[in-house]
């Protein structure tokens, strides 16, 4: 389509309006994200040699690699986050399928609201709710005793499984939304055609549905993985001392040990990890970042 020529003044005016509209977002991005990160980057690369005396050094990064505990927690956080993401995908897919393909009209909207309802309550309250259910004197252990499944109330908190349950629960909506979007755009006649040509449930899912929904799946996984990796509250409350989540290490450095330099280095390592995992995920699924983000 030919674009009509616009006078230079009109172009200038349009740029001004665009700039003004974007100003709050850009300001927010600069003041709250770029500026603190620049400062943290500087912090992470200096070492205190004497009171108020600093030199540039890689000491904090060396500490991370030299200390097995940090390493261990770092890898564990990454693995559990990946596991939580995979579990969230497994749980969210049938829900998204129901919303996008099986439910109609109001039912579909209602199911969406059901997924949204937990988010009306603050994350702290939600997580404390889990604690009420799972602690040794809580609802679920009492139920197990009542049913005769366990002789004594068992402590269901402070296990890795508990952390995973909490993380999946918290992340579910962020997986369901992009999945519903990508499944809704799948033409039903494609599924029927595949069925007509002899396909069965699993082969259709693998050959038709998953390739079509791949951008949505990748988008959901990226968002959930990032949220999980950076989550502090859920692992801390549900995992207790055993949680060993990397965000806790960062918190400890900043708040307990008052070692901002070390905390900043940990923060950047977490950022690098999350970037690397996203990059890896895109490579494995063969998706382009821009396509995926459009779905998210």
């Amino acid at each position, binding site marked *: 389509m030919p674009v009509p020529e616009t006078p230079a003044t009109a172009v200038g005016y349009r740029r001004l309006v665009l700039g003004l509209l974007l100003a709050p977002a850009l300001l927010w991005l600069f003041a709250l994200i770029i500026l603190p990160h620049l400062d943290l980057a500087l912090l992470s690369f200096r070492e205190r040699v004497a009171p108020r005396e600093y030199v540039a050094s890689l000491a904090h990064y060396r500490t991370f690699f030299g200390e097995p505990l940090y390493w261990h927690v770092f890898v564990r956080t990454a693995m559990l986050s990946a596991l939580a993401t995979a579990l969230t995908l497994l749980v969210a897919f049938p829900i998204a399928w129901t919303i996008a393909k099986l439910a109609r009209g109001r039912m579909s909207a209602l199911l969406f609201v059901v997924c949204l309802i937990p988010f009306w309550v603050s994350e702290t309250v939600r997580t404390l709710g889990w604690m009420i259910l799972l602690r040794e004197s809580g609802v679920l252990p009492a139920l197990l005793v009542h049913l005769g499944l366990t002789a004594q109330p068992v402590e269901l908190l402070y296990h890795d499984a508990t952390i995973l349950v909490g993380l999946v629960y918290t992340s579910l909506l962020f997986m369901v939304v992009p999945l519903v979007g990508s499944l809704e755009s799948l033409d039903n*006649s494609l599924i*029927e055609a*595949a*069925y*007509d*040509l*002899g*396909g069965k449930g699993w082969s259709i899912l693998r*050959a038709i549905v998953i390739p*079509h929904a791949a951008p949505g799946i990748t988008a959901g996984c990226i968002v959930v993985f990032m949220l999980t990796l950076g989550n502090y509250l859920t692992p801390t409350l549900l995992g207790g001392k055993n949680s060993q989540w990397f965000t806790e290490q960062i918190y400890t450095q900043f708040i307990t040990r008052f070692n901002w330099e070390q905390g900043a280095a940990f923060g950047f390592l977490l950022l690098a990890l999350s970037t690397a995992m996203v990059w890896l995920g895109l490579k494995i699924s063969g998706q382009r970042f821009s396509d995926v983000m459009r779905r998210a």
Partner: protein
Amino acid sequence: MVATPDLEVRALAKRFATHLAVDDLSFSVARGSFFSILGPSGCGKTTLLRMIAGFIQPDHGDIAIGGRSMARVAPNRRPVNMVFQQLALFPMMSVAQNVAFGLARRGVGRAERMRRAEAMLERVGLGGAGGKRTDELSGGQRQRVAIARSMILEPTLLLLDEPLGALDLKLREHMKIELKQLQSAFGTTFVYITHDQSEALVLSDHVGVMNRGRFEQLGTPQELYYAPATPFVAGFVGDNNRLVGKALAVDGTLVELATRGGWVVRARRKGAITAGMAVEAFIRPEATLLGRTSADLPAGQIAHAGEVISLLFDGANSAVLLRELQSHVEFRIALPQTGAYADLQAGARICFSFDPQRAICFPAPDARA
């Protein structure tokens, strides 16, 4: 001995809530023939096709394909394949992968199925296009891929759900011919549904004209066109002039009727008609002759007079639309191919007549019910 029909439908019925989509339908389709189901949207033809494919369970009746009952046989196990309205090619696969999809589901090895897919593409004139993406193909090519994808499974029956509907007119005309050629080349039985009477007439060996869940008439295209069984068929298949009126007199096979405006015409009787009954008569535009004066018309035919409303020029399909002088009923007459009367102006007076044997008169549907 008569060969087993490839498709036999017996007393098939399907109801959606209060709407009877398919109403006690029975018919059979001979092996190797091209069968069309023609009807307006909402007549139940899609429901019928989807029941044959197995996507919808009928309430009553049975469908037998190749002599075998299909009750409780899932769509993916029926010897039937379907070409979907929007073709439903898999965009995530190459053309060859699309064609080989069905073979893969049957467990044919990769090398073998790619070889057969390529051979099938060759057969539909798409040799070498196997590596392309489906969105790189033209509308006509996509249709051929959709047919190849189904035909590679050698179905007893190929169902086609208005596959030409999405194409533009020029391509549609072209694809009509191509479909017919493909069908005769494969020799497979095609069941084709459409709302376009021209597609049904050009393509089919037999056509079932469907209305409100029933077949109004089942016959060859010629039978439908020249001997419609019901007013609906007469009005739906081909262009027709419809005159509504009352029978004045019945003389053997001929009915004399008067329209509401008092225009008296004669037409061949179809069905039981007695004087005084409400009737509907149909006269084809090309069954009518034009004359500048009544002297130009064949002797023995009643001469009618009309005033030209407009000339509808469309090459070989040109027609003149006129208003009968007495009743002001609109009437369409095909222009002769000679180019005579091509100079007619709006407002001109003209005479016309038709052979009453080529006009057909039915009892009005309300009177029949």
